C-alpha cells in the first residue's frame, strides 16, 4: 500500500480508482440477484420478484444516506455508531479513517452492500408478500438490522473491537440476510400451495446467468473490502475465484451422489455458496485454504437445502442455506485457518492462536441471534398493522398482474389499446358476468 505516493490530503489515486470500479461491480450484484431470483420463481411472479431487488436499490440507498451509514460508521460505539453523519453530514473528499480513499467513495461502496443484503432477504417471502409492506420492511430492515450488524462487524462495534475478523461481511451480509430470511419466512408464512404442489423454477437460464453476474460483482465485493489495491484486496480478489470453483466441484459430486445427475440450478447455487463462504475469510486465508473452504462450505449448505424442503418452512429461495449457513461456515473457518503471514492481522487455531476461534464463534452466534430476533419483531409489528401477504385468490393469479399491472411474458394477443391518443376511449363490449 505504501508504495504508491499519496495525493493531496492522503488520498491514493490507485486505491480510489479501484474502489470506484468495485462500487459499480457490487451495485450490479443486485440486478443480478433479481435475475437469479426471478428465474427461481414461477412465471407469474417474475416481475414482482425482480422488483423486490430493484426496490432494495431505491429504499436502501435513500435510508443509507439519511441515517444507515451514520449508524454503521460514525464513531466507535459498542452497539451502534452515531448520528453525526446523518444526511451525509461531513462525508466528503477527505479520506475515510484507516483508508486512502475519499469518504464519499467509502460511503457509496458500503451503500451497495446494504442494498444487496436487503434484496437478499426478499428471497424468503417471494410469490406471496405484498409489495407495499415489503417496501416498508426493506426500509426498516436496512436501518435496524443491516446498519447495526455492519457497525458491529465493520464500524468498530463490539464484535470488531473484540477481535472478530470479518473481511467483507460474513456477519452483516451473509448471516444477517440468511437468518433474517428464516424469521421472515416464519412470520409471513408459506405459499398457499407449498408442500402440496410442485412449485418449480420457471427459467433455469436466468438462474445461471444471475449467478454468473453475481460472481462477477463479487470480485468488487470481496476485492474492494480491503479498500485498497494492497495485499488484502489482491488476496481477496483471487480467493473469490478459487473458493466458488471448489464449491462447484464438490456440489457436482454431491449432486451426482444423490441423484446421478449434475444439475444446473445446483451449480448456480454452488457458485453463490462459494462466494458467500469466502466473503468473511477472503483477505485472511491463503489461496490454498480458500480452496479447501470452497469444498468444506458446500456440504452444510447442501445439507440444509435438502433438509429444508422436507419441512413446512417455506423459506422459498433458500437464503438461509446459501447465505446464512455458508456465511457461518466462512466466519468459523477464519478461526481455524487464518494465517498471519498472509493477512498481517492474526493467526487462527491451526497456526497457534486459539483465541481467534473464540472471537469468530462469538460472531457466529451473535449475528444470527440478532438478525433472526430483530427481523421477527419488525415483521410481527408490521403484521399487527397491515396484512403482509396477498389473499389466496390473488396469490393464485400471481403477483405480477396484481402488484404491478404487468406480465413478464405478455403476448399482446387480445390486448386492446386504451391510450387516449389512439382515440379508442369507448368501452369494449364485454359480456356481463351477472
Amino acid at each position, binding site marked *: 500500500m505504501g508504495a504508491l505516493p499519496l495525493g493531496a490530503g492522503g488520498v491514493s489515486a490507485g486505491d480510489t480508482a479501484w474502489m470506484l470500479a468495485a462500487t459499480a461491480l457490487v451495485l450490479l450484484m443486485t440486478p443480478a440477484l433479481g435475475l437469479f431470483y426471478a428465474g427461481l420463481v414461477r412465471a407469474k411472479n417474475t416481475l414482482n420478484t425482480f422488483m423486490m431487488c430493484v426496490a432494495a436499490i431505491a429504499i436502501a440507498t435513500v435510508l443509507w444516506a439519511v441515517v444507515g451509514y451514520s449508524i454503521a460508521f460514525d464513531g466507535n460505539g459498542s452497539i451502534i455508531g452515531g448520528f453525526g453523519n446523518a444526511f451525509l453530514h461531513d462525508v466528503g473528499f477527505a479520506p475515510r479513517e484507516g483508508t486512502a480513499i475519499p469518504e464519499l467513495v467509502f460511503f457509496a461502496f458500503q451503500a451497495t452492500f446494504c442494498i444487496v443484503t436487503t434484496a437478499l432477504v426478499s428471497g424468503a417471502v417471494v410469490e406471496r408478500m405484498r409489495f407495499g409492506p415489503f417496501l416498508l420492511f426493506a426500509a426498516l430492515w436496512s436501518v435496524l438490522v443491516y446498519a447495526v450488524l455492519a457497525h458491529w462487524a465493520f464500524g468498530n462495534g463490539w464484535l470488531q473491537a473484540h477481535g472478530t475478523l470479518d473481511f467483507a461481511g460474513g456477519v452483516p451480509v451473509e448471516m444477517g440476510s440468511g437468518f433474517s430470511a428464516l424469521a421472515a419466512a416464519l412470520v409471513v408464512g408459506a405459499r398457499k*400451495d407449498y408442500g402440496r*404442489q*410442485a412449485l418449480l423454477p420457471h427459467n433455469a437460464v436466468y438462474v445461471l446467468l444471475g449467478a454468473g453476474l453475481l460472481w462477477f460483482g463479487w470480485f468488487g465485493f470481496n476485492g474492494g473490502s480491503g479498500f485498497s489495491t494492497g495485499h488484502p484486496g489482491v488476496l481477496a480478489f483471487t480467493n473469490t475465484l478459487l473458493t466458488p470453483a471448489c464449491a462447484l466441484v464438490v456440489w457436482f459430486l454431491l449432486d451426482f451422489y444423490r441423484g446421478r445427475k449434475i444439475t444446473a440450478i445446483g451449480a448456480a447455487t454452488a457458485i453463490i455458496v462459494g462466494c458467500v463462504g469466502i466473503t468473511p475469510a477472503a483477505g485472511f486465508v491463503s489461496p490454498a485454504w480458500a480452496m479447501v473452504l470452497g469444498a468444506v462450505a458446500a456440504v452444510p449448505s447442501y445439507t440444509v437445502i435438502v433438509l429444508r424442503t422436507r419441512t413446512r418452512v417455506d423459506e422459498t429461495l433458500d437464503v438461509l442455506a446459501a447465505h446464512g449457513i455458508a456465511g457461518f461456515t466462512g466466519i468459523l473457518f477464519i478461526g481455524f485457518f487464518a494465517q498471519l503471514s498472509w493477512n498481517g492481522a492474526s493467526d487462527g487455531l491451526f497456526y497457534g492462536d486459539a483465541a481467534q476461534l473464540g472471537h469468530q464463534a462469538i460472531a457466529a452466534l451473535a449475528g444470527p441471534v440478532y438478525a433472526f430476533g430483530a427481523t421477527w419483531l419488525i415483521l410481527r409489528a408490521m403484521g399487527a398493522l397491515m396484512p403482509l401477504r396477498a389473499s389466496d*385468490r390473488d396469490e*393464485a*393469479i*400471481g403477483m405480477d*398482474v396484481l402488484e404491478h*399491472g*404487468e*406480465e413478464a411474458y*405478455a*403476448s399482446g*394477443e*387480445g*390486448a*386492446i*389499446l*386504451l*391510450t387516449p391518443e389512439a382515440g379508442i376511449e369507448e368501452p*369494449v363490449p*364485454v*359480456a*356481463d*358476468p351477472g
Partner: protein
Amino acid sequence: VRKKKGDRVKLVIGIVRPEKANDVLEALYRAEVRGVSMSRVQGHGGELDRVETYRGTTVRMGLADKVRFEIAVSDSFVDKTVEALSGSARTGEVGDGKIFVVPLERAVRIRTGETDHGAVTPVAG
C-alpha cells in the same frame, strides 16, 4: 341394447383457470380417469378484464390464460369426470371456466387398435 349403450364414448372438454390445473389433475386421478391431455389456451368468458400499463401504453387484456383438458371416456364415466372437473376447478368467481361434453364418432387406441369403449377410460368395475 345394453352392450351398445356401454360402447358409446364422449369427449369431456374442461376449460379451467391455469392455477387450478394441478387441482384438476389430482381430482381426475382420484376419479380414476386414466387418459387426459391438456393444453394452454387463451379465452374470454365474461370475466372482468385486467388493465396493464407498459411505459405509458395502457391496454385492456381481453383474453385470459386458461388450461383446456380433453378427456375421452365411456358413457357411464361422464358424470364422474364432470364432477371431478367442476369440483376441483371452482373458486366461485367469474372466470372459473366451462365444461363441454360432446359425442365421439370413434376412438382408437393406436398401440393395440382397440376402438371406442376399449380405447378410453372404461367403466370402473
